């Protein structure tokens, strides 16, 4: 049985007709509306939603985000791996010491202090240099083949709706190029990195160079019609400046920048995954004529427990574990299929209603349009079912029985499309979703939001993130101090909320122990959150 027959059989179930042409899918609904839907030339491009994600990132060390940004800003290419610098420290003339004994002592200390050993895994266990200055990362790249974002993600997150916001980019580049706040050994390492690269050595980076880079051209093009979720980008820009302006020592500010980028990017993944998934759920309902159900806001969905109070047991029923299952196990892991479905459905919408469909895919808007337009519902339902078949057919693993089952299915078209993509990507779902987020915020040290205890995965906010979030929320509200309840409302804007009332108390106590909450009376309303710095 050919794909044309399956497609026609599927369309015929609703009295419509469909044929697969050369690069197009031709639809004729029961009411006679004819639509020619273009098919992707390269099906992998169907999983790019450039105004939501500027690249096809996979999981990698979060510190490399900064290192890659430095390299883009420095236009560095073909630089050696930082293991060369590590090894070279013990060579004569690299460190300014008079003899071999002293050189060996310093080299061994610096190798331990400045190189970070990632969590051991088969793929990434080689130590890498902490990018505390541009001279390190611009002249030496991290080990291995880098898989996550380059500077595109920083530029993307710095989009203000019209153009790149220069302020956070400049603040970051200035910090990474500035040589003040160095210890004797910081200086020795920087000098070693510069000296050993000779005339090719790069000592500083600038925001202007970053803004003129190919990455900037690419991201500007992607965002020409707006970002998928601008509020998240607005939060990031403000918070990055807050982090960089904190009264912290130089190294800690670099660390704060990495944490800010990691936290925001992880929360962004969750939020976009949720908006896409819930938006497609909504579109599925709307396409069935039942009207789109209200989309609950993301605020407060990421229920966490506090990790600053020592180790505690966790149960699967706990809010922090249930929230992980909802956001990660349901929406985040389905990010790829939902990206694909959103793109393909948007293609149908644009083909059917070129004047009404927005330039960028957004299932929330599609759901609203479907609720208003019954003939569009028919087009989308027929086209989605046909696209499910065409998508399955282009995969060599598809069987006749699978295609037959799709064609005979009673399920609505959008549902079929999502589930078909999901089934075909089953083995690689996590690469571009969970693996990225886990690398960003599932850590055994400094700045972790996701934890595993036994078989239970859950959200747990550690001290480092709490330290940053208190500063972010206070700065956002423009206050030096904030009533505890208002602080919680501020956290909710990030999607974060204590898992229950007891956890609110636990959070207050943890903040108090950490010196960031003051009680002015025994009554709850007089608890004020204030930052240490």
């Amino acid at each position, binding site marked *: 049985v050919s794909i044309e027959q399956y497609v026609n059989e599927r369309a015929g179930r609703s009295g419509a007709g469909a044929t697969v042409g050369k690069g197009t899918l031709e639809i004729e609904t029961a009411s006679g509306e004819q639509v020619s839907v273009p098919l992707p030339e390269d099906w992998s491009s169907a999983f790019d939603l450039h105004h939501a994600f500027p690249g096809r990132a996979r999981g990698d060390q979060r510190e490399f985000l900064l290192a890659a940004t430095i390299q883009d800003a420095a236009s560095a290419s073909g630089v050696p791996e930082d293991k060369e610098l590590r090894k070279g420290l013990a060579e004569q003339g690299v460190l300014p010491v008079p003899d071999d004994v002293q050189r060996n002592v310093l080299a*061994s*200390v610096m190798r331990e202090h400045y190189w970070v050993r990632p969590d051991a895994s088969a793929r990434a266990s080689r130590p890498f240099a902490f990018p505390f200055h541009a001279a390190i990362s611009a002249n030496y790249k991290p080990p291995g083949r880098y898989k996550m974002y380059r500077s595109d993600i920083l530029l993307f997150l710095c989009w203000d709706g019209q153009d790149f916001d220069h302020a956070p980019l400049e603040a970051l580049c200035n910090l990474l190029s500035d040589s003040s706040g160095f*210890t004797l050994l910081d200086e020795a390492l920087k000098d070693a990195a510069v000296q050993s690269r000779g005339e090719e050595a790069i000592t500083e980076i600038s925001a202007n160079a970053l803004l003129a880079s190919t990455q900037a051209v690419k991201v500007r093009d992607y965002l020409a019609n707006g970002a998928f979720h601008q509020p998240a980008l607005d939060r990031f820009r403000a918070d990055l400046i807050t982090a960089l302006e904190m009264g912290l020592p130089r190294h*800690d500010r670099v660390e704060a920048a990495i944490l800010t980028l990691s936290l925001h990017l992880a929360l962004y993944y969750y939020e976009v995954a949720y908006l896409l998934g819930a938006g497609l759920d909504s579109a599925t309902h709307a396409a069935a004529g039942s009207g789109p159900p209200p989309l609950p806001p993301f605020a407060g969905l990421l229920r966490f427990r506090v990790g600053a109070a020592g180790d505690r047991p966790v149960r699967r029923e706990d809010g922090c574990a249930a929230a992980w299952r909802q956001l990660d196990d349901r929406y985040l892991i389905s990010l790829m299929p939902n990206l694909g479905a959103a793109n393909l459905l948007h293609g149908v919408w644009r083909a059917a209603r070129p004047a009404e469909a927005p330039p960028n895919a957004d299932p929330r808007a599609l759901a609203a349009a479907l609720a208003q337009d019954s003939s569009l519902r028919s087009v989308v339902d027929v086209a989605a079912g046909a696209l499910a078949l065409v998508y399955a057919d282009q995969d060599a693993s598809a069987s006749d029985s699978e295609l037959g089952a799709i064609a005979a299915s009673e399920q609505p078209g959008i549902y079929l499309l999502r589930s078909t993509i999901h089934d075909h990507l089953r083995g690689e779902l996590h690469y571009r979703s969970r693996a990225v987020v886990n690398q960003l915020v599932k850590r055994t040290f400094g700045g972790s939001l996701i934890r595993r205890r036994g078989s239970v995965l859950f959200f747990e906010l550690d001290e480092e993130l709490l330290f940053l979030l208190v500063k972010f929320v206070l700065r956002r509200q423009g206050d030096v101090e904030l009533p505890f309840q208002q602080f919680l409302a501020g956290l909710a804007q990030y999607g974060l909320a204590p898992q229950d009332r007891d956890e609110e108390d636990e959070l207050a106590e943890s903040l108090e122990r950490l010196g960031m909450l003051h009680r002015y009376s025994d009554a709850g*309303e007089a608890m004020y959150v204030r930052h240490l710095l």
Partner: protein
Amino acid sequence: MAPFDRSLDSPIAAIRELRASAPGAVVSAGAMTALQEEAYVATETERLLLELAESEECPDLLVISGSAGSGKSALIDRLVSACEERFGTVLQDATHSDTPTEGQADVLSRFFAPFADGVAGPDRASLIAANIGMLLAFFAAIRNGEGDHGFRTLETILKHRLGISSEPPRDAPWTVAVVNLDLRPTAGPGGLLVEMLGLTDFRNPSGIVKGAPRCATCQVRAWCPVRSNSIIASSGAAPAAIDGLAARAAAERGRHDSPRQLWDFVARLLCGDDGFDERDDPCDAVADAAERDDRKWVWERLLPRRLFAMGGDLGGRVRILDPSSQPSARAHGTLARAGIRWDADGDALLELDPGGAEAIATCADDIKAGQVSPAVTGRGLVATNYLLHPADWPVGDAISQGFEKILEEYSGFSAGEDGSHLPELESLTRLLEKALGRSFGVLEGDTPYVPIKAYDPRDPSRIFVRASLSYDQSNIYRVEPDPAASRDPEGARLATHRPLAVTVQLGGVAFAINLPMYRLLEAAATGTVASTSDLARFYGLRRAVEALARAAADQGEELAVERPGHARRYRVRKTRTIGGQKILAVEELSR
């Protein structure tokens, strides 16, 4: 038939009413009960406020603030009755609600109307008693989005004076005095407790029990621990002894106890930590004990037995100050001698009776008869001796005594006294250096080196920087004057404030060293590993140490490094070769 005249009031019942859980514990301004009137203790704060109110300097707005039970309502009552004509508007009832309802916010808005932005102030002074939470909630309630709520000047002034905001106070055309009763010392010099004990003396005809007329008819006074306790606690050196305990207990938590907490403590002290709730007439419990010939019951409630074994918040903190738990020859001698000569033990207890504390004799007889264990007798005799001769018994341990000296010097430093010779604060600095070195870094001899934080905390840092907290490096470390007195000297004066913590600035992070923190530092300096909760309290310090390390390193301080895989440390410093070339010198420190 009862061995006392039931038609007369039970004095024990009156004492029982002083407990924090009693219905009459909460004072309502303008509606104080007879007991509350009788229990009121005038303080220096009241005198200063009356003086201020009657002077030409009387502020346009007088705010009496503080936590629940701090005495706001009682104080405002006194002020109003003493000089009502000075105040145009008085708001006495803004104290008890936790959250202002819409109506309460309106009431407060009306009250504060003369102090709104751009308003010149009232014709006559305004007086308000409000807990801090209520004031904060008021400003939060009237905040309307990003807009100005019209009381920004007042808000900045009150928040600044109360130490809630670092935003500078705006200039106002009117004057304000803010008295935060939480800052008022309630025990120790100028405190309330000594007078409270006098008011509860059963012999005091103008006291709370009006001389306890029922006791004159009572046939079983020798079985009444409450009467005897009231006499012991208010006689001789005992009031000062008990006051000293309460003052030290406040220092132990770094916060003064409220009058309500003190009354609760007094009630527990006199009742032997017994609620006397089982009989409608609490005196019946005494009669029952007499009928049973139950001397143990009396002893278990007698002050020397119960003083260091009480419950309640303050009682619990006094418990740890028990001199019999401190390592002293005097305590050891008393404990060791107890139970060897029972007659001598009983006689030692009898010394506590200033006359009229008849239950002491009852218990002394029991001791003489060998009916009380030597250990319990020994501890009771230590307490007895402490109540009789408090000056001979240092309260608390050596650490708290050392901290008291530091606070004393710090008060003078904060008041602007000559700062050229500050041995106690200097010793605190040295302790801090040592504790930081031990807790976070390494000590090489007496020189502390603090770690330069490695990015990955799983690997201990191997690079340390010498961190000397000398006074001239003001950007790294300095002792700050007491913040309460600095931000509002007049408010601190009116509240007769004495600091319970030393505020220091370390690497740009300000934190308070109170007695619990001082204990941690002492423990850390001797190498004791802190518990998890202690470590959380160290969080601010840890952040400060990180900043300190960077700041010190930034100034070119020499480093100490630890070679991985070796137990060897090296000093790294800048130097020059004979040819003038800048190099690093790496010298072994220790093995």
